[in-house]
């Protein structure tokens, strides 16, 4: 605000002078804002009376940080950015040949992902690697897979789905119920869960065929809630909000088991020391394989008529129809395919946790998955993977920041701030890259001889 107030009348002032004044404005505004929020806090004492706790020290720190931050921003950051902009405008536009990392981004990423658990085991030992493989590796990859699945519906077909977590839930409960009651193996139930989720995808698809944009978003949101409420209230089958526990583990393709009590426990078969890490590492590679499957299918589908029809549908439904595309089946296949991958991820989730309850399938999950897709850049697999890494990895890292307790006192729990960080990251990314990390769409059709076309032609405008 201070910037808009003062920028008109002091073109003559040097940046430092202006920065000083603006810093004072910012400090005054933040003092006014935060005096009640931070400076005073209501609390209860032992006799249950409401008392005022005064936190002038903390208030001073926050106001000081805002003042100094504004000063530095206006005095140094803004002129530096303007200089860079001027340099860029002056220099002839050079279309930089993409560097080695960027050209081979997918290959490098895949290799790193495959080597990751080995590196963790080497670095921390089997027991020490548990946290890194499970909390970071598997957790992030589940979201990568979910986001890639949702990407088919939202990114490719352009159907805004706010209830994607419903399919995740269908997959998880399909495995949990069929696995615990009938003792079927994961390898049978994985495709079954995918098929069941796809079926629900079609069921959702039918009534919303004629809807688009915000109307569609509302109906899908409601659908997600309906599934969750059914899970809570249909106690006879789903055991309500208590959830289902004792879900069987995944076996090593039926050859080896990860239960210590089984005769074919992996450590007994291979004559190695017992460790819980084997299972986690196995799960890591399993979800990695599922992710690769999702990516492979997405990439292949984009080159097939149905995938091209999805993308065309996102652009212009009427044009699609007049070109002879059956928009009904096109939409339904998009819902079904996206839902299927959600179902796969769900059954994996159930197997990994050993426990499912409706708690895991709240709207917030849908929102996070959608946020990852949007941040990554709709339709871009690489961008989405990076977004999942940043968002989910970032929130996991918050758990590790115990040293912050030394700064903010022992009551401070960094995990509670994860949504704040999530929001901040989204605002920042959307300011700098309004189309997500990877905003441009990769074309899928070429003439036989591929012509070199200057990148400036193929770039998209912001819109």
């Amino acid at each position, binding site marked *: 605000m201070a910037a808009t107030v003062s920028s008109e009348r002091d073109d003559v002032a040097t940046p430092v002078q202006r920065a000083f004044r603006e810093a004072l404005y910012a400090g005054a505004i933040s003092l006014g804002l935060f005096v009640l929020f931070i400076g005073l806090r209501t609390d209860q004492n032992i006799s249950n009376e409401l008392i005022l706790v005064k936190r002038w020290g903390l208030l001073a720190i926050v106001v000081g940080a805002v003042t100094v931050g504004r000063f530095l921003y206006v005095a140094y950051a803004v002129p530096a950015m303007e200089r860079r902009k001027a340099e860029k405008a002056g220099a002839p536009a050079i279309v930089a040949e993409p560097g080695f990392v960027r050209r081979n981004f997918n290959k490098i990423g895949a290799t790193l992902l495959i080597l990751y658990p080995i590196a963790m085991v080497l670095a921390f030992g089997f027991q020490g690697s548990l946290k890194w493989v499970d909390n970071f590796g598997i957790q992030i990859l589940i979201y990568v897979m979910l986001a890639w699945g949702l990407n088919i519906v939202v990114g490719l077909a352009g159907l805004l789905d706010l209830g994607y977590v419903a399919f995740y839930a269908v997959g998880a409960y399909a495995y949990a119920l069929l696995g615990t009651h009938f003792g079927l193996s994961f390898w049978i139930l994985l495709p079954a869960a995918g098929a069941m989720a796809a079926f629900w995808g079609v069921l959702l698809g039918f009534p919303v065929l004629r809807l688009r944009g915000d109307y569609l978003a509302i109906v899908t949101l409601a659908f997600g809630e309906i599934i969750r409420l059914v899970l809570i209230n249909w106690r006879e089958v789903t055991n309500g909000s208590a959830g289902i526990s004792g879900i069987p583990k995944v076996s090593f393709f039926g050859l080896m088991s990860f239960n210590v009590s089984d005769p074919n426990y992996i450590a007994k078969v291979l004559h190695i020391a017992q460790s819980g890490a084997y299972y986690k590492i196995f799960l890591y590679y399993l979800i990695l394989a599922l992710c690769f499957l999702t990516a492979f299918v997405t990439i292949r589908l984009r080159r097939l*008529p149905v995938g*091209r*029809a999805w*993308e*065309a549908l996102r*652009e*212009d439904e*009427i*044009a*699609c*129809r*007049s*070109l*002879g*595309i*059956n*928009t009904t089946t096109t939409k339904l296949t998009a819902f079904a395919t996206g839902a299927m991958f959600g179902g796969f991820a769900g059954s994996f989730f159930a197997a990994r946790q050993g426990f499912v309850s409706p708690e895991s399938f709240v709207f917030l999950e849908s929102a996070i998955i959608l946020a990852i897709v949007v941040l990554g850049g709709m339709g871009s697999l690489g961008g989405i993977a990076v977004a999942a890494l940043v968002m989910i990895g970032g929130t996991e890292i918050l758990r590790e920041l115990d040293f912050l307790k030394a700064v903010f006192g022992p009551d401070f729990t960094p995990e509670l701030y994860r949504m704040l960080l999530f929001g901040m990251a989204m605002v920042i990314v959307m300011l700098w890259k309004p189309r997500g990390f990877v905003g441009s*769409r990769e*074309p*899928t*059709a*070429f*003439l*036989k001889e591929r*012509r070199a*076309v200057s990148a400036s*032609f*193929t770039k*998209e*405008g912001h819109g």
Partner: protein
Amino acid sequence: MAGTTLLDIKGVETYYGNIRALNGVNVQVNQGEIVALIGANGAGKSTLMMTIFGAPRARAGTITFAGTDITQLPTHEIARLRIAQSPEGRRIFPRMTVMENLQMGASLDNLKHYDEDVEKVFALFPRLKERIAQRGGTLSGGEQQMLSIGRALMARPKLLLLDEPSLGLAPLIVKQIFDAIRELNKAQGLTVFLVEQNAFGALKLANRGYVMVNGNVTMSGTGKELLANPEVRAAYLEGGHH
């Protein structure tokens, strides 16, 4: 070839809600002809174009294409009978490249002829070949119109519907596009039904023409007759054209 009726529109009435947009329209398009439908804004020209495609659907009357009653067919099935359209406002896919747009036009069945058909489109509109990897949305208006027609041609249509191909284009580009349509008709015998506000250009191009006023066809005749007709001249031609 000429003479057999390819598209026969009989007594078609179309409504938007309760508002009647077409008032019992009769139009015939014969094999190998170029037929122009001219009229003022809001006369119902584009509505007729869309009604052929079943969106909106005709409430009364019949539309027959090559002997098949298509009045109640779903839009995509009508398109599969090889009626192709370059719709009003072009409606190309802006985020897709020129090449991908053309591919969408061919998505019906046969990718067998794909390379051949692409070359044909590029021969007709060399400009598109220069823009091959560019995104549709970054093309100029004229190029977008060429792309829209090219995309329609990729389906190897028996009948090409053009909704205001000259809309918002410079006269030179309009001439190019009309020349291309004439060329398609002469060289390949393609039947064309076009809707235009540019009455002079359209009637000069067309074998026959219809004039539409407030949802009714009020006049019809050969292009030359209509061009010479004093009423048509007064309503659509005086003041501006050449």
